[in-house]
Structures are given as C-alpha cells and as structure tokens.
C-alpha cells in the first residue's frame, strides 16, 4: 500500500487516491517513424528490478499527473516530480546514485 507525495498539492497520498500510469519518459513516435521505434514507444518496457521511473495521477486529489522514482524490489520511493519534466531532476538522480551506487541510469 504505497504512499506517494503529489508534487502539486503536497499531499502524501495513499495508493487508493492515485492511479498508476506505467513507465515514464517515453518518447512518442508518430507517423513516419519506424516500426521498431513505434513498437518501443508503445510496448517495449524496461521493467527493471530496481530503480523505476513511472507515471502516477493524483486521481482522487488534484487530478494532476506526476512522475516518481521508485525501487520495484523494495518499493522505496526516491522522490516525485512534475510530469512536465524532460528527465528526472539532477538532485534526484544524485540521490538515487548515492543509495544505489551501481544504478545504470534512468534511460
């Protein structure tokens, strides 16, 4: 029963107030893209056993989507940040590296 802090309204919301949205930082491929790229965008997933970047919506709260860095093996939450982010904040990445020295990075 996870709790995640919504970066928009500051509520540490419990899982039942949220909906999960799968892997974050996917690049959208549209018309003109290769079959491989389109497949990778829509279906292929990292699904790591470890640090995972993912989308959540504060559905029963402010309704905003946000992103979270979470360990899928321990469920530790390293941090949450706005959905309008091209990549995880530098300080968050640093924090994760400190806790998971051989983390291969978010890509």
């Amino acid at each position, binding site marked *: 029963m996870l709790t995640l802090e919504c970066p928009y309204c500051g509520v540490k919301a419990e899982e039942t107030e949220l909906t999960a949205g799968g892997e974050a930082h996917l690049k959208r491929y549209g018309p*003109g893209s290769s079959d491989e790229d*389109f497949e990778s965008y829509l279906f292929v997933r990292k699904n790591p056993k470890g640090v995972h970047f993912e989308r959540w919506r504060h559905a029963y709260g402010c309704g905003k*989507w946000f992103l979270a860095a979470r360990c899928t093996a321990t469920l530790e939450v390293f941090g949450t940040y706005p959905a309008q982010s091209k990549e995880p904040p530098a300080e968050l990445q640093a924090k994760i590296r400190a806790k998971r020295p051989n983390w291969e990075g978010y890509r």
Partner: protein
Amino acid sequence: MSTRLSKGGRLIDRTKPLSFTFNGRRMKGYHGDTLASALLGAGQTMVGRSFKYHRPRGVMASGAEEPNALVGLGQGGRFEPNQRTTTTELFEGAETISQNHWPSLEFDIGAINNKVARFLPAGFYYKTFMFPRFAWKHVFEPIVRQSAGLGKVPQHRDEDRYEYAYAFADVVIVGGGIAGIASALAAGRAGKRVWLIEQSAHWGGRAVVDGVQIDGQDAGDWVKNAIETLGKMANVTLRGRTMAAGLYDHGYLLAYERIADHTPGDGRPRHRLWRIRAGHVVTATGAIERPLSFAGNDIPGVMLASAVRDYVVNWGVSPGDRTVIVTNSDDAYRTALALLDAGLVVPAVIDARPEAKGELPEAVRARGVRVLAGHGIAKVKGGKEVTGVSVCIQAGEGAEIESIACDAVAMSGGWSPVVHLWSHCGGKLLWDEAQAMFRPDPKRPATGDDGAAMVTAVGAANGILTPHEILADAHRAAGGTGTAPGAVAAVEAPMQPVWIMPQGAGPALRMKMWLDPQNDVKVSDVQLAAREGYESVEHTKRYTTLGMATDQGKISNINGLAVLSDALSQAIPATGTTTFRPPYTPISMGAIAGEARGEIFQPLRRTPMHGWHETHGAHWEPVGQWRRAYCYLRSGEGVHDAVNREIRNTRNAVGLLDASTLGKIIVKGPDAGRFLDMLYTNLMSTLPVGKCRYGLMCTENGFLSDDGVVVRLTEDTWLCHTTTGGAERIHGWMEDWLQCEWWDWKVYTANVTEEYAQVAVAGPNARKLLEKLGGMDVSKEAFPAMEWREGTLGGFRARIYRISFSGELSYEVAVPASEGLAFWEALLKAGEALGVMPYGTEAMHIMRAEKGFIMIGDETDGTVIPQDLNLQWAISKKKDDYLGKRAQERKHMVDPDRWKLVGLETLDGSVIPDGAYAAAEGVNANGQRNMQGRVTSTYFSPTLGKGIAMGLVKRGPDRMGEVLDFPVDNGKVVKARIVDPVFFDKDGEKQNV
C-alpha cells in the same frame, strides 16, 4: 478430567454466571471466561476431531496459537464456523457445536482413517488414486472431499455489519504485555502520537500470570497503573480486542477490532478494520510456547505448560487433577507451582535435561514433587483422554522404565517469538542457538518508503525472555529516556533443545508424534518428505501440509523445521523458515468487505430523472455505474413488446430518451482546435461556431475507443460529447496528453457531464413538441440539422443540439441537472396530445441499427479500427498526425483481408444470434474450423418487420450479395446475405425535415 476450581481466576467474575450450550448440552461459565476456559471448566476435555485421521482433540493452548479447539458458534445469520474457543469471549446464550465428525463427537465414522493411518502417510494421494482415469474425479475425490473441510457452511445472509476506519500514528505498538506497555509509556512521554493495540480483552500478557514483580509491585498492579497513566495521555490511543492482522508496505498496518463478538446483536458493527498508517511499528507480540514431540502428544489433556497455568490462574480452571509436567527448561516449573498453589497434584516433573538445579526446580522439589531429570515421555496413554504416561530415558529409545497415572500432561519445549508482523514486509530472521529460536535480525528489518527500517521488535518478540531485560529493551526501542521499569523474577537455567522425545525413538513411536495436531502431520511425515527429496522447507510444508492448518503453524513450524533439518543433517538456519503471510490470525470476510454491502455495495449513479424512470416501469440496464432504462414496461407487457412499442411510437409520433449519462467535456483555449485535431480522427478546428460534427477517437494503438458529437461553442471553446462509459476515461485521457505530452499547449478542459440533464426528443412530432413548450425558434429554417442553439424552452434555460441517432427528426436538449426532472415532466405534459412516450436504450440501439449507425461496444471491442467500419469519411486526409494514425499504418492494420463492416440479412427473415461466427471452408494449422466473420449487432426491426444485423466480414464490402453460413447451437446453421448496413431511410429524409 478438567474442572472448575472452587476459588481463583483473576479474569472471571463468579458473581456473573453465564450459560451456554455445547452440542446442545447446557453448560455454565462465568463472565470473563473464554469459550475454552468455560468448556474446560464444565469438564469438556474433548472438543473436536482432527482433519485427516479424525482423532479426538482437546484444548491445547490458551491463545491465538490454538490448533484444536475450534467450534461452530451461533445460529442462522450469526452462525460462524471454525471459531477459536481460546480467543472467543463467552457470552450469555452462546450456542456452540463441535466440528469435523459424523455422526457424533464421541463416535465418528471418519475415525476409521485413524485405524489405517499407517497406510495414509504424507502425500499418499500423490502416489495413488490414479486408475482408472475417471476415478479421481468420480470416486476418490468425492470421498476425500466428504471427509475434508472443518466447520459447517453458513447458510444465511450475514446479519451483522462491519466498517473500516483510517488512523495515522507516529508509532503503533502491537501487543499489550509489559513490553508493549513499557514501549507505549516511553513513546507517549516522548510526545509521539502512539497507538497501543492488544488482541485480547486484557492487558498485561504473561507477566501478570507468572507472578513477576515490576518496580516493587505485582505485575498486575503495575499494568493497571501504567494503563491508567497511558489513558490520560492525549497523544496515546489504547485499543483492546484489536489484533494487528498484517503489516503492508509503507507502514500500512491492518488492525482487526472485534467490537461486538462478545455482545452479538447489540447493534454495533461486529468488526472494524483499522487501516493505520504508521511512521514506525513496534512489535511487542510476545512468544508462543512449543510442544514437545513424544508419542501421543495429541491426546486430549496434553496441553502447553503455559496454557495450563493460564487456565488455573486466569480462569480458575484445572485441566486435570493429576498433571505430569514434561519440559526442557525451567519455565515449565512455574506451572507446577501454580498447580500446587491451586491444591492440585503434580505426580512428577519430567525434565529432558541431564540435570535440573535452577531456582524454580529447587522450589518445586521443596514442595515434595519428584523431578526426573534426563527423562522423557515414551508415550502418553489413553484415547479420548489421558490416563497416564510411560516414562523413559531421554537419551534412549523409549523403553518404559516407569508408568505414571495422570489425567493431564503439561509440556514445554521452549519458546518461539511471534515474528509474523516483523516478517510480513520482508523483515529477516536469525537463529538463536542458545534459546533454540528464530528471532528478528535487527540488521535486516522491513523497510518503508524512505528505505529506512519500518519495524522494531521488542521483548519476547525480540527473543528476550526475562522480564527485566524485556522492559529495558522495550523502553530503549521506543526512545525512552531515564531509567526503564525494573523487574524481578526467578533466575532460570538454560533450556536445552529437544526435538524428539526420546532422542532415539524408532519409526513406530515417530509415527505417533504429532507436529501439527489439526492437520495430523507427524514427525514421521516430515522425515518421509525429506527422504523423498522434498528438501526445501516449502516443499515439505506443501507435501505434508505442515503448518497449513487454521493456526498456520504457530506451534508446529519450528518443531517441524528442526525435524526436517535433522533428517537432512543440516543446521536449522540452513533449512530456513516458510514465508509469513497475513493475516496473523484469520479475520472475517465481512470485515474485509467493510461497509460495502446492500445499497452501498458500490456507487450507483443516478440521472436527475432516475426516480421518474423507476416509478414508470423502467427495466434497468447497468451501464458502467449508471442505470439506464432498457425499456419502460407497461402492465401486462413483455420486454420485447415494450421495446417494439417504443420504437413504433418514436418512428410515428415522438419519443423521449434520457441521454443525461452521455459525457460532456469542455475544451477551451488558443490551442484547443489543434488539440482536438490530434484527439479526433477528423478535423475539429475547422468546425464553424454554432455547428456540430460527429467525431471518432482512437487509442494510440489505433483502435476505436470512443465517438460522439463535437460542438463549437465559441471561437476558442468546444464541447465534446462522449459515450456514457467514456466520460471519465476520455476526460482523464485528454488531461494525460495535455499534462504529460503537450504541456506547452494552451488548453483547459472541464468535465461537465453531470451539470446537464439531456433529453433526446425524437420523432416526426419532435418539432411540434418543442414549439408547444414555447420559447426559442426551432423551425427548419432557423435551426438546421447539425447545428445548436441556446435560449429558453418552456421557461427552462436550454441548449439544443439538432442531432439524430435514431434517424428521426431529433433535438437533444440540455438543461441544468437540477431542473432535469421538471423539464422531463414538462415535455411529457406538453406532448400528451402528440403521443409522446419515453423510450429506452434498447429502442435506441435498434433504431440506430436500422440506420446503420455503429455503436461503441457493439461494433467495436478494442480490436476494431475505424477503417474496419468503413468510417474513412470521418478520417481526415489533411492531417499528418492524430492519435492512432501511426498505429493504423502497421502491416496487419492495412491488411486487405481484415474483417469489415457489412449488413447481414437472414434468408428467412429470422434474427441471427448475437455473436455468431461465419464459418469458412477447411481448418487451420491447429485443426480449428476457419472463420470469415461475425455478428456484431442483431435485432428484430419492428419498423421493417424482420431481423436485421451488422457484422464484420473478411473483405465484406467487396462481397455484397454473398450468403454466409453461421453455425449456431446444436449443429443448426443460419444462412445470411451480405447487404448494405443502412436498412432504413438511406437518404435521411426523415431526419432532415
């Protein structure tokens, strides 16, 4: 035989006798009794039968670990099977029945299994019952099933109610013994928000029974004062009768409060499920005593030593007049003293250790009791009750050197910390060689959302068994300052692990040593599992069913592990434990469901006119959480007639449809048009203000997901209608794209679905009806099709869309939801002379089918793209992108062999069954008959007086006129011709008048 003592019993009130029944027999107990103490007090030693061999079973423990003493409790809507008598408080009039026997507890046919037990070792069923093939299902399994199961099946709807509650705390302390209390005092004084919960109705745990002295007072008094002190702290919450069932991730503790189990029918909720979000959890859950494995240790009258003294001290009950004590530690000598103090006889204490010279043994000797050190029990004599024990040398093979007559045996094999909560979320254990126990490994606790330790175990739950150290540990762990409470108790000599008694017992004896008395798992079974290669502890558990009974192995697991490890000649930690899973003890399904039953089982969404429909014969159809009228039944009318009547009336006069459930989403902003062009397959940015346009939405995977009419309200504002099921989904989806992909686009959305009541007014008389209401001009000239107007109608604020889903002249009128009912009634009143009549969703479905309009959820099922439905006209060629476009370019999506929409007409005019498939010649590589299409919608059209259908057919549109075979039930084949899907008024003359 067990009986009630003339005095004593710190928990019972002898001035408040209670009467109850067991198998119909009246019995007497006292307020403060548990069912178990009351039964023992009434001389009922045998209370049930075991699972596999149906052997006699008696009370073995005094708490949550009890494996045997389960009964059926209550009557009718309050009957519950498998109630653990040791944790169920007695109440006046309680009706109990024993379980798992036929015809009676004393004489049980199933006990035949016991006679042939040697032929039914662990896993025997994996090795036989295989021939002939049908036999397992039809012969053997029914037999196994009949003898299996425990309690009776409840027959009635539950009369009780349940509820949830949420709580938040800095620290939740689980267990109301002296450890938990000491931790609560420390945390409470530190100003933390504290919850202290205790599963029983009493505080204090073991210490109050064992005569411990704390800070110079009797433990009982210390506990009383401490609880008073805690009760006065505003930051501390105390909860008795509340069991911590499970610990889940991020500090989510599930606590099960038994509010009214002891006061059934008093109107309060029976159980309450607390969901406590804990900053930290302190488990002060104590320890559970282990039995010893000697032959006949399952006979009624053989009990845990700690339980024996609980019954004497707490409830004034003696398990027997002559109780032999068998042990491998000093602790059990306390039981001897308790029995002696109660004036009962202890013929001997049999101590497996070579010598017993501790303070407690000496005290017992001093009272003239024989202490047989280095001895063990070869076997217990008796059947349905203990008649004696035969004593042997522990180091030997079990030759009897002496026989002692007795009617009870108190056994103590050491203690196992209760580590369930510690382990639920991944906390690890370590093996304590000296005390022969698994205890929490402080270096490997369960971690929370911050990655830090989430649980701390204290006291006996942490493997500390002496009161003084327990208090110190509990105080420290809870951040206590100053000195911890101090305790004085007898000094104990070390225990000595004893896993089999006697040490050299042969197979014959080992087949009579019970590890799991409920499931009838014996030492020999575990050894057999090891011999056959089921070496993993999980394999052994599953192969023998060790620890899978309703007590989940609370008393049997460690003994079983030890036997297994010995059989594999490896150290116990190398064998490891099985996984601890919630709940700690079973919790009611009712509590898990909470308040959600009956009317509030799930939300039921109602339109403003819902009540009217209900009182006017609505035959409901659930659509998502909404209820929509499928049709309106008139007296003596069948569903089919009603639907046909509604259609005819709409086609010939005028009908009303409650369309309020349709989704309505406002999309506004400088980039709104651009956004909608990405969302819909066609162009919405070019839609002129004042006009409506039908649009399709696809998933990014290309499949049709929703459709509806889009309305341009102002230069920068659109209103998007969605399907009933689509409103929340599509709105959420719009926000997803706006927030996560195109966040630089200036667009706002608002879901205003419920702001409006919407009514479709359809039929030749529709215009007349609106004109009768009066207000805005709805004439053909002033208000052409596919446009919208705003104004008042019969005094109602209304926005009208001239759109048709029925093929009739049709206006969809939106008014404020609060006025919806009034508007609906106004329409009916004004329309009386015009033959107005409401119609339901089925009439709507059929009318749209007659027109060849597709329906999301009928023609689509998540695998259909717009191109399959010949909707190319609704897909813009001008756009280089829209959601789903790229997906629709994939190989399989442009395959000319895709199944495409056509009309279907049976040759005999009958209605083709819904969902039927069209067969093709031959079979595929897997021998399945080839298919070439399927029916997506099919109805009897009252308008055309015959069956009409739509379907998806391989290359369908190119095959007009072809006849297909639809094999349906029992070999029957329906023949249908491929036709144009528009069956009625092709040129749309009716709707454009």
